[in-house]
């Protein structure tokens, strides 16, 4: 006679403790999901996200568990870390203040300085800070994997992977570089003790990208958003495309998120790719209502949204995806999916076909 509990206990496997890497990965996934949820939940955030991508740079405060009371002093244009007499500007939490206006393309926002390709936001303490503790904490920047802190940005902690954010009582500022290709999140603690945070802007770094690895990574990161949608990665063939990995990752994220928004629950989102005359065509297909022919180009315009009952979001995602694609020489279009639905295709130069 065997005790069932012992039998099950044996079948459950070992009890080894997780390695530090496994724990760190769990934390990282959680942070990313939390950020995504907040973006999705905050209507103003969505609008601003779209505005930021469309317009270039935007600086917005983010709500937190404890609303920011910070006064951020922003000097005028100049080199990063400039110490000009600050003009205090109050950052107001999302849910309490007016919605900041989008910033026009080409216009350098107030508080930002431009030097070459560097875009710098200078943050300085407002008011008197008397306690040394006020200067402690971390200013953490979420950067794309290939980004680094600019020289002199000594207060930026980029040791962790993207998604590393650890600030108490923080005021969050979302920053997008003008081409919408980089998403950077800076958190400054309530008591600001640093003289600057400089964000470097990088040109697209096009390299061979293993599509399967990249797509699987994106799908994994979006799992919390999937709900009742299933994502199927279709092809068995392994292809490498020439692309800037962070930008391509964002494009695929936009397309999958778009499919989640518009395709009904319990349907499948299919990601596939093929090689056509030296060009890799990466497709994201859904089983939604599809897109009428007259809309297949217009949907890539900023704020263009069809008036459907399922329409949500800022209306900027596809525009951002197209801009991202163009920034690295890719094309993006929409076509009908078979048998129903919409199919978005990203065409990229092939690097290696196996």
């Amino acid at each position: 006679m065997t005790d069932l509990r012992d039998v099950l206990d044996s079948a459950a496997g070992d009890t080894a403790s997780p390695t530090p890497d496994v724990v760190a990965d769990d934390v990282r996934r959680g942070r990313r999901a939390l950020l995504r949820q907040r973006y999705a939940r905050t209507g103003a955030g969505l609008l601003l996200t779209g505005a930021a991508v469309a317009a270039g740079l935007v600086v917005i405060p983010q709500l937190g568990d404890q609303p920011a009371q910070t006064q951020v002093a922003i000097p005028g244009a100049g080199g990063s870390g400039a110490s000009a007499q600050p003009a205090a500007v109050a950052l107001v939490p999302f849910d309490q203040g007016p919605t900041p206006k989008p910033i026009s393309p080409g216009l350098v926002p107030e508080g930002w300085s431009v030097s070459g390709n560097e875009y710098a936001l200078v943050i300085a303490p407002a008011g008197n800070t008397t306690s040394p503790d006020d200067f402690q904490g971390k200013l953490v920047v979420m950067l794309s994997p290939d980004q680094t802190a600019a020289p002199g940005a000594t207060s930026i902690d980029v040791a962790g992977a993207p998604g590393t954010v650890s600030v108490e009582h923080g005021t969050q500022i979302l920053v997008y570089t003008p081409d919408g290709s980089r998403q950077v999140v800076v958190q400054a603690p309530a008591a600001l003790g640093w003289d600057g945070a400089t964000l470097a802007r990088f040109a697209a770094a096009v390299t061979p990208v293993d599509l399967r690895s990249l797509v699987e990574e994106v799908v994994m990161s979006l799992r919390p958003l999937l709900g009742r949608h299933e994502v199927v990665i279709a092809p068995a063939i392994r292809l490498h495309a020439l692309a800037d990995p962070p930008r391509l990752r964002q494009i695929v994220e936009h397309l999958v998120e778009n499919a989640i928004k518009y395709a009904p629950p319990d349907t499948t989102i299919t990601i596939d790719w093929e090689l056509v005359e030296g060009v890799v065509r990466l497709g994201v297909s859904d089983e939604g209502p599809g897109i009428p022919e007259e809309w297949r180009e217009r949907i890539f315009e900023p704020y263009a949204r069809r008036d459907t009952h399922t329409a949500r979001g800022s209306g900027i995602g596809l525009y951002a995806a197209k801009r991202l694609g163009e920034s690295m020489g890719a094309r993006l279009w929409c076509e009908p999916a078979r048998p129903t639905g919409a199919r978005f295709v990203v065409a990229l130069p092939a690097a290696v076909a196996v």
Partner: protein
Amino acid sequence: MDGSSGARDEEFRAFVVARRPALLRLATLLSAGDEHLAEDLVQTALTRLYVAWRRVEREQGPEAYARRILVNAVVDERRRAWRRSETSRADLPEVAAATGTVEDRDAVRSALAALGPRMRAAVVLRHWLGYDVAECAALLGCSEGTVKSQTARGLDRLRALLSDELTPAPATSSPRR
């Protein structure tokens, strides 16, 4: 990120270090020994847990929340996209199972795979985690009568598959985690 993300990170990290192995073991049983799927389920559960950390802490507690996600993922057909890759093992293992060896463990996992997901979850919750009938019913979203019938049939099935006289643990015994 919120203003207390640092505290959230530390608390969550401590939870993962302490309880991830137990959650992985539960997921392994619920997925009938598919370790890859179990890892996938645990990652998903922990991701959702991180997002809901503050609320979960106030309400049911992180481990109960994570368990609920794991069980829901297994028993709710609509959320089980991964089940397409689950191999049906309706063929009965012919090896009598004791405990302790890899072969025995595989036989038990094969036997679990022959149960339906809800029945498997009922057996695991009731006879491995030590949940009472009411707790099982609440977690599985069914009646207590259904829990009783599912666990009874599940035990019968396991006995037949494992060619052994399995003895359910007393309801008062401490749960395995």
